[in-house]
């Protein structure tokens, strides 16, 4: 009995000491050094406009529905790109709900971008990401949307392609990961172009 009591006392002291070190000192040390060395990243890689308003994060996708913007992937996070409620659809390969959603997304994507009714579309354009916050689309997906955006903004395809190119990231260090286009950065860059004000506000 005495041994048991001793063991529990040691266990309690060990819990408290380890909590102080691992859960107090350690995260605060990381916090201090991170805020000093990488303040931008440590606070969410936020993007602000000329007036200083936060417009989003370099790392988090946002919902876009108008013709003059590139559209992000479908999202299952809250009501769409809810960055306080990350989630995938978690629907399986034989889910009717998923198949119906994909059929609808494919039809919408073809219609919005003026594709043939039997054109194949890139998988990322019509499927939901794991986090619901995927900031990227594939270059193939961006390429298929470029004509629509150029038309809505009265830009040449070349101007749009140039912006896509500037916001495309290759694999990290030339090896890791897949090439990808950052949708929010691309759309903010389009807005900054400001050459012509957007005229069509379809899909309200």
């Amino acid at each position, binding site marked *: 009995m005495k*041994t048991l009591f001793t*063991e529990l006392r*040691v*266990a309690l*002291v060990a*819990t408290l*000491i*380890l909590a102080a*070190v*691992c*859960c107090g000192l*350690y995260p605060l*040390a*990381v916090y201090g050094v*991170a805020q000093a*060395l990488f303040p931008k*990243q440590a606070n*969410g890689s936020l993007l602000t406009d000329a007036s200083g308003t*936060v*417009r*989003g*994060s370099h790392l*988090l996708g*946002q*919902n876009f529905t108008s013709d003059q913007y590139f559209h992000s992937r479908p999202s299952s996070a809250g009501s*769409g790109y*809810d*960055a*306080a409620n*990350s*989630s*995938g*659809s*978690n629907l399986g*390969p*034989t*889910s*009717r709900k*998923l*198949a119906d959603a*994909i059929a609808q997304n494919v*039809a919408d994507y*073809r219609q919005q971008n003026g594709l043939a*009714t039997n054109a*194949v579309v*890139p*998988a*990322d354009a*019509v499927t939901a990401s*794991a986090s619901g916050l995927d*900031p*990227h*689309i*594939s270059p*193939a997906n961006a390429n298929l949307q470029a004509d629509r955006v150029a038309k809505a903004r009265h830009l040449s395809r070349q101007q749009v392609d140039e912006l896509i190119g500037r916001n495309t990231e290759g694999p*990290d260090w030339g090896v890791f*990961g*897949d090439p*990808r286009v950052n949708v929010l950065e691309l759309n903010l860059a389009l*807005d900054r172009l400001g050459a012509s004000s957007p005229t069509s506000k379809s899909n309200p």
Partner: protein
Amino acid sequence: MKPLDAAQLALFVGILAIITKPLGLFLVRVLDANGRTWLDPMVGPLERLTYRFLGIRSTGQQDWRQYTASMLAFSLVSCVFTYAILRLQDRLPLNPQAFAPMSDHLAFNTAVSFTTNTNWQSYVGEATLSYFSQMVALTLHNFTSAAVGIAIAAALVRGLVGSSVRTLGNFWVDLIRITYYLLLPVTFVFALFFVSQGVVQNFSSYTHAKLSDPFTVQVPLSDSNGMPVMTNVVVTVHTAKLQADGTPVLKDGAAVWEDVPVRDGNGGVVHTNLPVMVDQKVDEQVMAQGPVASQAAIKMLGTNGGGFMNANAAHPFENPTPLSNFVQMLSIFAIGSALTYYLGRVSNNQAHGWSVWTAMMVLFLVGTAVCWWAEARGNPIHQALGIAGDSGNMEGKEVRFGIFNSALFATITTDASCGAVNSMHDSFTALGGLIPIFNMQLGEVVIGGVGAGLYGMLVFVVLGVFIAGLMVGRTPEYLGKKIQAYEVKMAMLALLVLTLSTLGFTAWAAISPWGLAGLNNSGPHGFTEMFYAYSSANANNGSAFAGLTANTPWYNITLGLAMLVGRFLMIVPILAMAGSMARKRTSPPSLGTFPVSGTTFVILLIGTVLLVGALNYLPGLALGPIVEHFLTGQSQLF
């Protein structure tokens, strides 16, 4: 499958092989109470101060019973500590979003989950937990449950190599030394690297961003009492319009869709109470923040896997770049891989250590190849709907990781009992999703959880040597010690308890209303969601077919029990085996000794893992992912 993918796989295995030796040598020093490391000047004083507070001597030795008692006492106290914080988080600091306390069953599930190194999450992190709960209640176990696992592995190895001894080391010394010398320094460096990639580390309240392109969503209308307003409407199904002969009506080659009222058995139209929906304009994005980097670093290195955010390592704030992803994958395997080197070093048989490592790598590479192939091949049902055949199955995957890094991560996280995910396993193809569940059912011995992987694999080594001994008709020996009835009984106990628990709980859930109520998918996939959950809990993995709504009293409690069984009913027989082996005398190898290194041993070990570990689960797998694979080929939907 792209050439760069193969290059990434080669880099992963290559770098893992390179770090295994130096990290293994470092482990030898950390796990020796008198070992010296270059961190001594910094950490030594803290270590001695801790011993003084604990009132223990660093030279004190424990036999297997004392070692087990200390381990259980620590697990119990730290589990209660976490439970208390989760229940009281509204009265504790660092709660900028003013989250309410967790319910009792959810707090039980979560406290057990983190204590057992499972890190199953029945809750949505960014919508449930205060920063204090994340940083203290959960991160504590990220360190200590990992340290406990490594300590048990070290105790087992000491029992195997010690000749005629009664003691296995000192639990408290192991716990403190592993945490201070190994886990803290490495995670500190990793955490800073992750911040440099974009992982957040702050204590701010959630950030609001102004959207460029506001949109409207439909939300339920509430009355003045906050209750949803309901209406009585006709239930319809959205379905392809059919001609009289049953073939679909086509327009421009595409099916025409229509809404048809659902009728009951008497032909009457079915009505339902649906909430009245109203438009709501969304013009800002609220971004969850928090001290994520410090937790993400240890959740990988300690093979915990519990995410700060709901989407875990798929969330861009937890795993922002393919580079951070690569380092996270590497850190999941790092310690488990190094422990095989530790085994070889301490048992004075380095070839044995590398042979165990090789067996693990073979099982890892086969799993990776199958998962990668299945996901790259994609889903024929979705391809028939118009998805390009060469873009694979991207449902539940992030563009920056793509097919390959998602499949690789899924294989690694389930091989290693980590349970972090960078893609949603629930949305994998049938065969792609079979690999994670199968990996867990092997008993988490392919690298495995830190420590847990090695002691789990050593159970299979003992069984393998025993089977080989039976085949040639000699008394089986391992590292110069006779394997006798007691050891084999303990090894089988550790394995059978897991099988019984996984299959038993799954069967129970599958025939119970509470089990079926939680499903997100129906058909065989729904069964797989339950099978996955209990396999994950028992294997102390923590990943999920996350569609399952597990935050209900029944699921929380049964999964909590499964996690306790998977952790402690495995550890206790293993420590008993270690105690029994320690007492035996080591005899020099003779001509009849079965060598525990080389190709024959590797094949024997893989065979034992597959036969003993996997056969128990094949009938269950046939009912879930295997039948689903064939149904996918026939475009059967549920």
